[in-house]
Structure formats: C-alpha cells, structure tokens
C-alpha cells in the first residue's frame, strides 16, 4: 500500500499539496493538463524531491530513496521504444535483473508481439509494461499510458491493466478512462489533490466503452 502524507512539492511557479493519498488498488489521479499530475507521479517515483512530507510503500519509508530502490515501476507519458527487437528487449532486461521472462510473457500474452520485428505504439507500451513486471514491483505508476494510443488499443490496454492485480497509480485527464479503469479516483486541481472517491461509474463506463468501440464491432455508421 502506498501512503503519501503532508506532501508539498514546489516547482518553478507551481506548488502541489497532498494532505493524504492512499493507493492499494487501481487508483486514478484525474485532472486537466498542467494541474500537477505528472509532477506528483514523478515525486512518488523519486525523480522530484518533495519540500515536505513522507511517502511510505508497504510500510517502508521511501521518501529519500533513489528511484531504483523504491521497487516501483514507472511508465512515463512518452511511449517507450527500446532499441532492440521485442524478444531481445525482454530477454536482455530479464538477464540484467536475473529474472525469468517466461511467466511475464505468459501473463501478458506477449508471444505474438515478441514474434514481430517492429512494434506499433500500443504494442510498445504493452512490452514496456511487461518489462516493468520483470522486477519485483510493489507499485506501478502509469502516466497517461494511453495518450498516444487509438481507442481500440486503449480499450485493450485498460482490460490488460485490470487483469494485472497489482496496486497502481494511474494518471489520466480522461474521465471515461478513469471510470473504466479505476477502483478509486482522486481529482487534482491547481496542485491540490482531493479524494478518494469510490468509482461507482465502472459498469456505465464499460457499457459506454463497449458501445463506442466501433472498430471492434465494425460498425462504421454513427447512430
């Protein structure tokens, strides 16, 4: 469980205040552009040093630990494209971490992706996510992971995320995505975080996503 308390982060002309933020399931941080979502995520990841406050992960104080020692997986907003063939990438990084890639390959159903030479952005995102799972990760931080994906790929990504069963903080500006993916939602406005709000819109969002997934249904007439 991630517990953030009394956090204060200051960037040039910008301040974030978090009284208390707890995440043990899929926790959404929902907010418009420029409200501090990425800054908060980077602070939890360890790239930004907070002015005040503490961050605990599963009882460990990680506030002052370097990113590599936090046991966190972080997926930045920009798509991650590793300079290797997909199969080489996962095996190379698995070798570095002395991990067996096979369980991850199976869990993420990567076989088809690993047969390819080049990946689409959506596939590259799934591969990147899989690489994060090679290490013993206690929390995933995902920064608008579907921002460069089309709708069907986003839907696939959401369902994959839901199947992982790993605590994660998922940042998005899209309320439909928040409702379709999250268990609970925090809202950030002008650097102030409010929540948690229980996600009571999941079934409605799923219904909406199903209806809107025109690619899947091959229905090209909007009615």
């Amino acid at each position: 469980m991630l517990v953030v308390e009394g956090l204060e982060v200051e960037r040039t002309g910008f301040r974030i205040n978090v009284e208390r933020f707890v995440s043990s399931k899929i926790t959404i941080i929902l907010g418009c552009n420029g409200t501090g979502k990425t800054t908060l995520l980077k602070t939890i990841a360890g790239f930004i040093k907070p002015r005040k406050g503490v961050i605990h992960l599963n009882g460990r104080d990680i506030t002052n630990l370097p990113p590599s020692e936090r046991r966190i997986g972080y997926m930045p907003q920009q798509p991650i494209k590793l300079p290797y063939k997909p199969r080489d990438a996962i095996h190379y990084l698995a070798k570095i971490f002395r991990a067996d890639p096979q369980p991850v390959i199976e869990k993420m159903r990567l076989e088809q992706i690993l047969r390819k030479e080049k990946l689409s952005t959506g596939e590259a995102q799934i591969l990147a996510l899989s690489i994060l799972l090679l290490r013993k990760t206690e929390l995933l931080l995902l920064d608008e992971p579907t921002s460069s994906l089309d709708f069907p790929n986003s839907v696939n990504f959401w369902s994959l995320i839901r199947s992982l069963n790993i605590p994660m903080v998922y940042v998005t500006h899209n309320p439909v995505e928040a409702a379709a993916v999250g268990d609970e939602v925090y809202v950030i406005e002008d650097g102030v975080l409010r929540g948690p709000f229980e996600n009571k819109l999941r079934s409605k969002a799923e219904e909406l996503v199903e209806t809107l997934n025109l690619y899947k249904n091959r229905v090209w007439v909007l009615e």
Partner: protein
Amino acid sequence: MKNPLKIIVLAAAIMYIAVLFLPPLLYQRLTLPPDPYTSIVNTALAASIASLLAFPLAVLLGFYVSARGLAVVLPFLMFATAIPHTAIGLMVLPLFLALNIVDTWLAVIITMMIVSLPLGVGSVASGLSATVKALDEFLSVLGVGELRNIWIHMRAMGLGWAVSFMLMWLRAFSELGALLIVSYRPSTVGVYMFELFQTGGAEAAVPYAIIVATLGMVFSGLLYIISWRGG
C-alpha cells in the same frame, strides 16, 4: 516552376560551391605541392585518434546534459566554439610547454580533442533529446545501471552516434588556429596550407586548398548519407 523557394535554395547552394571552386579552377595555375598527401593522411590519423579518445567523454557529457538536466555545463563547453581557436592554442600553450610536448603529435591530438569535444557533446545531447527523458526514467526506476543505461541510449540514437563522431572528426581535422600555436611542426593540413601560402603564395597553396575542400565535400556527403539513413 513548381516551387520557387526550392529553386532559390538549390541555386544558392550551387552558387556557394561555384564561388568557392570556379575562380581557383579558372584563374589559377594548378601545380600540386611536392608531397600533397602526407599531411592529409597524418592529420586524418591524428583526428581519428583524438575523436576516438574524446568521443566516450562526449557521450557521457551529452547524456548527462540531455537526460539529467545538466544543460548548465553546455555554455562552459560551447564557448570554445565561439572564440578564435588561436586563443585556445595560446591558453593551452603554457601547459604544453610545461609538459614539453609543444610541436609533437601528442600536442596535436590533445588540441584536437579540446576543440572537437564541445561539438560532440552538443551533437550527442541533441541526438538523445528525442527519447532520452522518458527512456532514462523508465530504465532508472527499473534499476538499470548507469553505464548500461547510457549504452541503451546510444543504441536508441541509431546512427546518430556515428554522426556525432564524424562531426567531431571533421572539427578535429579542420583545426588550424590552435595548432598554429602548439604545433607548427609536425604540420597538419591547415598549417601546411598556411605555410605553402606564406612561402609560395596563392599559386602554391590554392591547389592544395582544392584537394582539401573536395575531401571535405566527400566527408560531408558521407555525413549526410549517415544522417539520412537514420542518424
């Protein structure tokens, strides 16, 4: 006329080449100096050694400038590209005198490293800028070691690293000002050309300038091909 701007740009490029090459070819008696190539080969070798030695440092600095927000070091390096390199030669001269390496190939190589490093750092930093931040954060959190992280970034640059290396090499090869001060002998391309002009006038030096300029065009063409193929 499909695109007048394209034609203007093309014409300007052709004019540039014409202004450089036509007058010496039309009006100069072209007699090659007795040994036109030794100095070119030696300079190319020195530039290669200097670039090979300075390149790892350029990669390291370029990575930190681009990925870790150390852009503040760039002005401290790039200033060297904005001053006459004679000044750099004069500034390193006391050190070279103390080390007793003035007028040696070692002095040539060290000077070439000094003048080509800023260009290498800038080039690596800009080559990495497209992907570096996200990839670095992704790998850092995973706990990928620093050197391995840099290696993965180098691979991500594709042929961009070759472009950076070639830019450094070209800069080292073309150095004159600093080398005039620290190593008149053994003479590099620039110094040799300068000496030919001083002793034999334009008639002696111009043919050599044409050889060097043609060589430069070949290398620039090569650089363009590498960049075009994915640098």
